[in-house]
């Protein structure tokens, strides 16, 4: 079974995310054992950010890495389990509120595709880049 | 001519104001007040300090039938009073608003008032004094009634009624002097020659004391004053409080103390009690005021009490203090009224509850606040400022004679500090209100009167001798007048006099 990174690489619409993960040197981490739950913003989500935001982040890998880590939660959280909690703690350290369960909304992002299984975790596709704070 | 000029020059100025266009009125009036001031300053240099008599006497027959002659003369007391008058007239005209209504009439009346008051201080004839004394009511009545603030016609009428009664009582006293003493005319010299028995002196002193007491004013004859001062515009208030009130104490010294020394000695303890009462009562009234102009008005009454206290004690030190206090009071009152007027003009309120934070260096009125603080400090008798020397001399002099009354006076200065701290704390300190604090700028011309007054207040405070030396010769003479031995007059004696008993009571040695 493919890892989280492999799935992102294969699936169209995640080019920005993949580039970001590569720039932040997180490929290896996301290929490791895990398991992780990843909220993966698609290209449209990145496009919604104001101009230059991503460019500047890509030039600063540690900072980019921090934003990306905010999209990652350790452990396996499928859609059914997410229904039972109202907050998760990200790998970055900050909490991720789950504001709505139906439809499933992770902070200010709506989940577009649930429960994409990978060998080392689960991917949920979201429509907005979520930020700490 | 030397003294006639002091009366004539402001009068000429008044006429000049009428002749020049209205736009130039203030400038002309400043010259009209300034020339007599310069003349007056020059007179200081010519004054013979060794001479305790009236100097530069002038005399012309006018109506010998009535005993009215045009007689002028000046001594140290008169010199200081005329100087105060000419100086404060100039200051008052300077502090008038540039956009005053009907400027020509206003400045004409101001200069007329000044001229007439100078006349009263210079007169050497009781009737002449009385004419000047009464004549100043007319311009002042108009000044209050036309240019006053709220309730001005009420205040002007009250002022007129009270001072008219005051005039009537003084007239009674004056005629009594002539008839009972049998002097040939009303000139001071003639009046001084007569010797009245002490009971008659006391009897004559009663209408004089009440008459001048209204003018000073003394509690409970003071009720016209706060209304009048508050209703009057700033320059008029300066003339009223700074100069006119001095006519009252001047009259008491001239006619009571000098002409009726034996009677004065008898009523002096009562005068002292009266003075102490005025000091304390009006200080308390000032404490409870919410309107700063009214507060200053009550403060003025309270401080006139010191003048009376000094004159009652009647020794050389207290008299020096008393005369100095008349000048100091005029200067301090002028600066306080000037600043209160400025605050009202800029902030638009005189209410303690609405004023705040004027000490603010950029948006407040820092100069006004600072000078107000200085004026208040002087009034409260802080050393180094003019009132300190004057009040200190009054207390030290009068304490020898009247312990309790003098101590009451000392308490009064403490109370002065109380109400001025209230005033300063509310108006000058604290936070400037952001909603209201858009006051117009204070221009240099508006600052100048206070600046000049501050200079004089500090100069005379640091060097009080400049103030005291002029009145010394007069006191040398005054001490000769006051009998050394104590006399007592009982109520029965006075009652006997009033009932027409011909038997003269014995003088107790």
């Amino acid at each position: 079974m493919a890892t989280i990174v492999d799935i992102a690489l294969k699936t169209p619409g995640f080019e920005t995310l993949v580039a970001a993960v590569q720039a932040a040197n997180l490929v290896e981490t996301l290929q490791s054992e895990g398991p992780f739950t990843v909220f993966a913003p698609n290209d449209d989500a990145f496009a919604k950010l104001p101009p230059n935001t991503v460019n500047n982040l890509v030039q600063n890998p540690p900072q980019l890495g921090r934003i990306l880590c905010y999209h990652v939660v350790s452990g396996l959280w499928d859609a059914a389990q997410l229904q039972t909690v109202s907050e998760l703690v990200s790998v970055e350290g900050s909490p991720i509120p789950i504001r709505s369960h139906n439809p499933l909304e992770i902070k200010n992002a709506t989940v577009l595709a649930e429960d994409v299984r990978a060998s080392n975790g689960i991917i949920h596709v979201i429509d907005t880049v979520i930020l700490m704070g | 001519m030397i003294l006639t000029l002091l009366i004539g020059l402001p009068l000429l100025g008044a006429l000049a104001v009428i002749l020049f266009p209205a736009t130039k009125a203030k400038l002309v009036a400043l010259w009209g007040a300034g020339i007599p001031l310069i003349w007056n300053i020059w007179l200081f240099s010519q004054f013979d300090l060794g001479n305790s008599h009236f100097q530069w006497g002038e005399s012309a027959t006018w109506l010998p039938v009535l005993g009215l002659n045009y007689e002028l003369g000046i001594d140290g007391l008169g010199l200081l009073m005329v100087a105060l008058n000419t100086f404060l007239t100039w200051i008052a005209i300077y502090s008038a608003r540039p956009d005053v209504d009907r400027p020509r009439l206003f400045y004409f009346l101001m200069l007329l008032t000044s001229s007439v008051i100078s006349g009263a201080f210079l007169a050497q004839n009781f009737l002449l004094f009385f004419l000047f004394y009464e004549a100043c009511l007319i311009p002042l009545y108009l000044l209050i009634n036309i240019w006053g603030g709220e309730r001005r016609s009420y205040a002007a009428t009250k002022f007129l009624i009270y001072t008219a009664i005051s005039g009537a009582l003084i007239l009674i006293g004056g005629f009594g002097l002539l008839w009972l003493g049998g002097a040939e005319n009303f000139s001071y010299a003639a009046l001084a020659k007569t010797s009245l028995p002490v009971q008659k002196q006391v009897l004559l002193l009663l209408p004089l004391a009440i008459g001048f007491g209204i003018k000073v004013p003394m509690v409970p004859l003071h009720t016209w004053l706060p209304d009048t001062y508050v209703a009057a515009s700033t320059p008029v208030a300066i003339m009223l409080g700074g100069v006119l009130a001095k006519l009252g104490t001047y009259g008491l010294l001239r006619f009571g103390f000098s002409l009726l020394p034996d009677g004065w000695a008898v009523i002096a303890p009562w005068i002292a009690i009266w003075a102490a009462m005025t000091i304390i009562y009006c200080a308390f009234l000032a404490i409870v005021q919410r309107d700063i102009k009214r507060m200053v008005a009550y403060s003025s009454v309270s401080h006139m009490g010191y003048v009376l206290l000094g004159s009652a004690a009647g020794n050389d030190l207290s008299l020096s203090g008393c005369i100095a206090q008349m000048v100091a009071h005029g200067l301090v009152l002028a600066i306080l009224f000037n600043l209160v007027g400025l605050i009202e003009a800029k902030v638009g309120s005189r209410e303690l509850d609405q004023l705040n934070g004027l000490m603010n260096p950029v948006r407040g009125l820092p100069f006004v606040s600072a000078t107000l603080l200085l004026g208040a400090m002087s009034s409260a008798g802080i050393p180094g400022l003019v009132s300190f020397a004057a009040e200190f001399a009054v207390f030290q002099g009068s304490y020898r004679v009247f312990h309790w009354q003098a101590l009451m006076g000392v308490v009064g200065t403490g109370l002065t500090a109380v109400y001025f701290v209230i005033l300063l704390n509310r108006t000058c300190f604290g936070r400037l209100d952001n909603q209201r604090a858009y006051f117009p700028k204070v221009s240099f011309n508006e600052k100048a009167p206070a600046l000049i007054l501050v200079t004089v207040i500090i100069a005379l405070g640091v060097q009080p001798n400049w103030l005291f030396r002029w009145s010394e010769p007069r006191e040398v003479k005054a001490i000769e007048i006051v009998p050394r031995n104590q006399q007592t007059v009982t109520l029965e004696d006075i009652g006997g006099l009033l009932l027409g008993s011909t038997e003269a009571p014995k003088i107790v040695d």
Partner: protein
Amino acid sequence: MTAPLPPSTHPHADVIHRLEAGGSMLPDTPENLMQIIGIYKAYAVPMDFYWRDLLYIGERVFLEPLPFFKYFLSKPYLDRHNTYAGDQSTLRVWRGRGEAHPELMEFIDKGVSGRRLPRLLHHLGHDRINMEFAEACMRSMFWHEDINPKFNAYLYTEAYKTAADKAIKAYFKGNIAMLGLYKLFPEMFLEQVRQRSYYANLGLFWEVMAPVFFEMSDIYDEGGFKGVPDAMEFLVNGIFAVAGRPIYHHVYIGDECFEIIPKSAGFTWLYEAALPYVEAIFYRTTPFRGTKSYDAQMQQVPRDQADFHYGILYADVFPVGSAGIPPTLLMHDMMRFLPPYLEEYYHQHCRGEDDQLIQLGITFQRSMYNVTSAVIQALRAALYYPLDDSNPEHLMANRRFFEAQMDRLTRSEARLRDIQTADYR
């Protein structure tokens, strides 16, 4: 956009509705726009000095025991290229030059007096930029440690202590007295290094803001902004664009660089500098000594640091003029670089030149309400929903966010109501 929400019942409902329509807390009038842009320009020039000197102190002066000359900026720091200006910049915010602003250079050279004197004389005559203001801001951020938890926690980690220890030892190499002191009181030295880290933090923050404000002034001069919301939008975009800028603290001793806080620690401009700055300086700060007496028994100074409310959004600008009050220091700095149109504007109002300091202080307050609006809108965009979201629940969440922000400005000291009118000057 038609808001399907009922009107807000908040005391600042009018402002909330304006924010929901994409506006600023500051009403959109040409006069307001002119004022805030003018003051941004006047602010940016001294700020150009502040950030350079803050970095100079953090990186070079470091632990100098007697830092008499810490405000004497060295030439390399004046010529240092701003990361966001000049032709060497990869993300060029300001189209102008990267070195210190020409007006600043002229001021350093000649001062207000216009006379070319030795720098020491300018300094002693106080004819200089008031760096004390920048240091007061730094101290405020340092003191309100709860608002920057991640950054602050890092200052107590082993990694930080080890790096600081190396730098301290290198800095005082051969200085037995200081090394002995360090041996005796290591915490004292560490605390000083932590403060230097905040110097660097604030310096890096302002390095961004200076070109942003310069650019805004240039755009305005070219007729680019149509209203206050445009100016706010520019700020919002600026905040996002540089959000990921690393916040770090490097110390240079000789030619060697000591990374006290390396870039790899992952601290970002938005989270570890901008947001704490807004909280510490715009909202909280500390009561300014000398302007007012506070009665502790009356609890006039809050028990809880989070309740402090002495920032520019609450400031009473009227008692200026007293020496040493940080906002007054800043106003003095800004007064020297006012654009002509703003100077003329002040001449026409209140007491003209005499109270220019207060007038520009209130303009500054207006402009900072606009910056705060930009921060609020940026946070709304980052954490909540677009203003034209079709989901009413999302709009309601936005409403609650705005209301929560406005709650902080309901206390009586807040100037939000004042700046709604043009008469507050």
